[in-house]
């Protein structure tokens, strides 16, 4: 993939006068008329927005996929009027920028075609991610094209213009300036943007009495509050897993979804691969709810959420920390603690003990003391990256609103009407506020209730900045001109600060002019080119303040724990189809959330999967379908946030249940509650129905004692091998590194135009993902070991599928890729029937998005959009192979290692996927194929797969030998 990165010169990104051939149809008046009929909203647009919109529509047609191959039509072709120097049609341009998640920057390399971003990859030079990504980053591009985004300002639901907005703000400013902003309150989600924080300070300078409140329904803010309680000051924690030997986790899903996932997973995998004779790092996890961390742990202990404090204290006692008393423990707990303690004592400062962001203070305190005692050198602290640090809480705001102290409320980038704990009664209180402004991508539940809804630009179309989890700042540059009538948050802040029509990048430049000082332009260009500005936040030292004391969660009954959803998080991604259809790591559930209960509890209450359960906390209750989660602590019930939305959009509305409805304001993460069956049940859209390995050696394991597998005998073949080309592609997947995060699936979806089929089709069993993360359990249902196994096409050298096709729609090329030719496929599905791995996917119906949907703008023009009735499957990202070939051929050279990187490989946060040329003995993939842990799936069938696996380490401890 060509690394030709570019950046915008001056404030003018893809300007309105740019035309590209993607707009073929959009120039046609008939088409425009049709659009007006189909899409009345489009008529509302400003000329610019409208043209950009038509451009998208045009794209959707230009890419409408497999037309019949009969008489080739004469279509219109539109050249530029004034072609920009940098634009070459049909050649993607690549920008370094960033998207934000939970307030943090996710540095990305954005691939754009004719001004349409279609694919995001991690920025390989970035110190934190080093090019890795997670599902949220991969799916961000679809959020940009969300058809349900707010497209122009509205006042009480009526369309308004920005002039109106400016006028309204002027009035408000008048009233604020009277009494120093008394009664002006801002409610914002966590922010790391230096520019925004600067603007907030400026605002507070203008109006000293203005108040800022922070609301973060999930994510890093929770941990920061814990740390504030433990260390006496809010802190961000940084795990240096690269130098770590032992991790002991108390309900901390450090490998799970979240802003830190990429960094932790990367470090974890790096350490894990330190030695070829044994796993380089060991993980001891005590978990209430099964998560990625527990699945990867060598020794996993099941314990209820409310018991973590006890365990942590006992662990502390084991390490001989003063004041720690070891309570009465079960044998299992005893054993686990002993092993963990032994290991951490051995590892000393290279050991790390962690407590969950969503745990209780008690656990956090003991964990802090233990780390302190261990003098852990792999735990670092810094000031919080996201702020504002001195913000008041949502609770205070609601109180003030009730007291009528709030005249103006500006809600920025959060959705309290949906995410506020029902107990607070935010929506009622909101009625007390005279004027309310909502700044957000969508006119969501909150936008509905506010007087003004001011639509924001998506990160990919804005000038902004943000900091990554380690504090490294990225300057966010637009990859596309805003195609709706929207403004960036900085522009609106500037309006609040009194500007009339602020330029898109003015505020950002101002911020960085200050810090870059002298040679601003050069450093600015460099920053845009690199995608980040060197320099993490300085380390600070912290010691737990002894007096902090632990307290147990109040009340009796089951532990009800709340978790953000692994794919749609706190609900902000509800309308992103890719994320909705992404199977949740351990349940493989799509398009909904469940109430997970332990097998024991299920037995006790005779619960079956899908039975509707009523969860009651205090006087509130919510009803959701049950999921019996093997390995869940007996008395812990887990609810996941983010579903049950009413104003998410066409994709996200009315799915699942709303856990915020029972969430207590004072105990946001662990509460006591009860459970009962409602008697009804529903069908869950899961992508994997069976979870036991049934004694097959699908996932293999090695131990430090026997670090390599018994060599398999490749069954002989009757036929002579076909001659291979210079390159022979192969893929090796390291099962020891795969944490089941689904980043590869999301990346594949984005790269290969994999369609979203919807809940009903998933229920029938027709999901289209080209790579699936198979998830297996082994052992007892109530204390199983979990395995992840990514399964893309195996590209068998002796492929059974190819033999079945009557029309040559699938066969091999000399580089060993099992080709699937959509335009030749007549849909007999024989290939899929014969495929032992069942990796082929079929377009049973027309799964393409409706032609007028802007979602088509996210399509990769280098990959065919498949029509109804054709088979499809993993192609090893052939479009990347072929463009690499083209590039090499033009330079008249062979391909080099790293010329071809598949989407899944690029995305994988742990580098579990390696792709390359197996003819080249020095290539990474060849090296791994010689590894002792190397094996092929179902090799006994003689299919000779090109995609093979590295066995997983089974590290001792927990009595598992």
């Amino acid at each position, binding site marked *: 993939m060509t690394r030709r990165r570019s950046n915008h010169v001056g404030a003018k990104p893809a300007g309105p*006068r740019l*035309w590209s*051939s993607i*707009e073929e149809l959009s*120039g*046609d008046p008939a088409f425009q008329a049709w659009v007006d009929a189909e899409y009345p909203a489009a008529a509302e647009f400003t000329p610019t927005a409208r043209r950009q919109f038509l451009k998208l529509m045009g794209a959707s047609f230009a*890419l*409408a*996929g*497999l*037309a019949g*191959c*009969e*008489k*080739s*039509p*004469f*279509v*219109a*072709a*539109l*050249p*530029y*009027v*004034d*072609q920009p120097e940098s634009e*070459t*049609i*049909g*050649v993607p341009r690549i920008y370094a920028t960033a998207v934000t998640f939970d307030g943090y920057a996710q540095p990305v390399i954005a691939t754009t075609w004719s001004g349409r971003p279609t694919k995001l990859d991690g920025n390989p030079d970035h110190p934190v991610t080093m090019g890795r990504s997670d599902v949220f980053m991969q799916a961000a591009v679809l959020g940009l094209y969300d058809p349900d985004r707010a497209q122009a300002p509205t006042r009480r639901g009526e369309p308004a213009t920005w002039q109106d907005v400016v006028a309204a703000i002027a009035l408000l400013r008048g009233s604020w300036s009277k009494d120093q902003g008394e009664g002006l309150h801002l409610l914002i989600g966590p922010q790391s943007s230096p520019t925004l924080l600067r603007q907030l300070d400026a605002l507070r300078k203008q109006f000293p009495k203005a108040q800022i409140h922070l609301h973060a329904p999930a994510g890093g803010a929770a941990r920061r509050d814990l740390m504030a309680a433990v260390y006496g000051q809010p802190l961000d924690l940084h795990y240096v897993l690269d130098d770590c030997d032992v991790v002991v986790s108390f309900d901390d899903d450090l490998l799970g979804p979240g802003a830190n996932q990429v960094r932790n997973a990367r470090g974890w995998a790096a350490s894990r691969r330190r030695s070829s004779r044994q796993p380089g790092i060991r993980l001891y996890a005590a978990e209430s709810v099964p998560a990625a961390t527990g699945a990867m742990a060598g020794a996993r202990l099941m314990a209820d959420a409310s018991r973590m404090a006890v365990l942590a204290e006992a662990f502390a006692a084991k390490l001989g920390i003063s004041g720690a008393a070891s309570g009465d423990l079960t044998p299992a707990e005893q054993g686990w603690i002993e092993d963990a303690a032994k290991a951490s004592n051995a590892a000393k400062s290279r050991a790390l003990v962690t407590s969950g962001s969503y745990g209780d203070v008690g656990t956090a305190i003991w964990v802090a003391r233990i780390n302190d005692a261990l003098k852990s050198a792999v735990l670092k602290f810094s000031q919080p990256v996201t702020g504002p640090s001195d913000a008041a809480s949502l609770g205070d705001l609601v109180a003030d609103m009730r007291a009528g102290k709030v005249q103006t409320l500006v809600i920025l980038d959060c959705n309290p009407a949906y995410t506020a704990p029902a107990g607070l009664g935010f929506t009622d209180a909101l009625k007390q506020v005279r004027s309310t402004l909502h700044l957000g991508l969508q006119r969501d539940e909150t936008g509905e209730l506010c007087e003004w809804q001011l639509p924001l630009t998506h990160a990919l179309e804005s000038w902004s900045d943000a900091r990554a989890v380690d504090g490294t700042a990225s300057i966010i540059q637009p990859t596309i001109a805003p195609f709706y009538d929207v403004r960036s948050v900085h522009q609106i802040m500037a309006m609040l600060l009194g500007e009339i029509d602020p330029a898109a990048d003015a505020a950002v430049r101002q911020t960085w002019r200050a810090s870059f000082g002298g040679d601003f332009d050069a450093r600015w260009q460099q920053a845009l080119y690199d995608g980040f500005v060197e320099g993490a936040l300085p380390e600070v030292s912290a010691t737990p303040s002894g007096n902090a004391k632990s307290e147990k969660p109040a009340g009796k009954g089951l532990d009800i724990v709340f978790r953000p959803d692994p794919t749609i998080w706190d609900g902000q991604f509800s309308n992103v189809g890719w994320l909705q259809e992404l199977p949740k790591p351990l349940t493989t559930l799509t398009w909904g959330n469940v109430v997970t209960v332990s097998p024991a509890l299920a037995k006790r209450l005779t619960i079956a999967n899908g039975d509707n359960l009523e969860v009651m906390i205090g006087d509130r209750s919510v009803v959701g379908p049950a999921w019996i989660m093997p390995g869940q602590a007996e008395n812990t019930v887990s609810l996941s946030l983010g579903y049950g939305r009413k104003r998410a959009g066409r994709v996200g509305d009315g799915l699942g249940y709303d856990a915020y409805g029972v969430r207590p304001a004072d105990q946001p993460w662990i509460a006591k509650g009860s459970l009962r069956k409602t008697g009804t049940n529903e069908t869950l859209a899961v992508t994997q129905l069976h979870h036991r390995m049934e004694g097959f050696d699908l996932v293999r394991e090695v131990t430090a004692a026997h670090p390599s597998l018994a060599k398999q005998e490749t069954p002989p073949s009757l036929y002579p091998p076909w001659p291979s*080309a*210079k390159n022979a592609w192969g893929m090796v997947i390291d099962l020891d590194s795969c944490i089941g995060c689904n980043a590869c699936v999301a990346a594949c979806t984005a790269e290969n135009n994999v369609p979203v089929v919807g809940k009903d089709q998933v229920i029938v069993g027709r999901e289209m993902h080209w790579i699936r993360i198979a998830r297996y359990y082994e052992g007892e249902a109530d204390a199983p070991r979990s395995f992840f196994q990514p399964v893309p096409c195996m590209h068998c050298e002796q492929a059974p599928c190819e033999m079945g096709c009557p029309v040559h729609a699938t*066969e091999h*090329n*000399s*580089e060993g*890729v099992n*080709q699937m*030719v*959509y*335009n*030749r496929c007549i849909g007999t599905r024989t290939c899929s029937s014969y495929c032992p791995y069942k990796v082929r996917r079929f377009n049973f119906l027309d799964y393409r998005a409706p032609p007028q949907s802007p979602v088509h703008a996210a399509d990769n023009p*280098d*990959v*065919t959009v498949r029509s109804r009735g054709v088979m499809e499957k993993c*192609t090893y990202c*052939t*479009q990347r*192979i*072929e463009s690499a*070939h*083209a590039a090499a*051929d*033009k330079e*008249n*050279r062979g391909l080099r290692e790293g010329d071809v990187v598949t989407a899944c490989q690029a995305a994988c946060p742990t580098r579990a996927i390696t792709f390359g040329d197996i003819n080249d003995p020095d290539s990474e993939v060849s090296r791994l194929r010689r590894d002792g842990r190397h094996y092929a799936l179902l090799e006994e069938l003689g299919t000779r797969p090109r995609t093979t696996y590295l066995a997983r380490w089974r590290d001792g401890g927990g009595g598992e030998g």
Partner: protein
Amino acid sequence: MTGGLIVVKHSSTGQNGMAQIFSPAADTWLRLFLLGSLAIVAGGTAGIVGFARSAYITSTDFRPSQPVPFSHRHHAGELGIDCRYCHSSVETAPRAGLPPTETCMTCHSQIWTNASMLEPVRKSLADGKPIQWTRVAKLPDYVFFRHDVHIAKGVGCETCHGRIDQMALTFRAKSFTMEFCLDCHRDPAPNLRPKDHITDMAWKPPADARATGEAIAAHEGIRAGELTHCYVCHR
């Protein structure tokens, strides 16, 4: 086959009686009918196979009308403007690229400045709307063709686009069927030419076309035998 072919039954023969049902002519007609239908089936099949290659289906018979009657004969032929002057990205990108209006105006702001036939061009520049050409050389959506590689490996423009320099109104000179592409992908050598003749419309292969072709193929490191795989063009 009714009427004359069927003998009108005469009353003399009784209920059980027998008589000719058909006149002798009926046999002739029946045989003709059988032969005829045979011929139709055979001819039809042959016809369809031929039709698929006909100028009509491949659209090689048709000069689409253009907003501006642009003549390649005049510009490329008589004036001898190089292809790459307008189709600028042909060497660097998959697409050759249609010239932006600006390119037209580089000359036509000087000459023929008020020729009526150039009105659409001036209009396009004036109100920033592109000229709506009708695309002549169009491949189906599922074919991924790259100009740059072909140029780099010594395939001349004329090889696929014909004598553009002799076309008043541009038309599709070659039938862009898979057959057409495969002929060359299977055996590139005869269709290769030296780098400096890529845009040369009049270039004729030397007597030892194959030998020179082989030489170029070898020099350009053309991956012979790997070019007929599906993924080379279909994704």
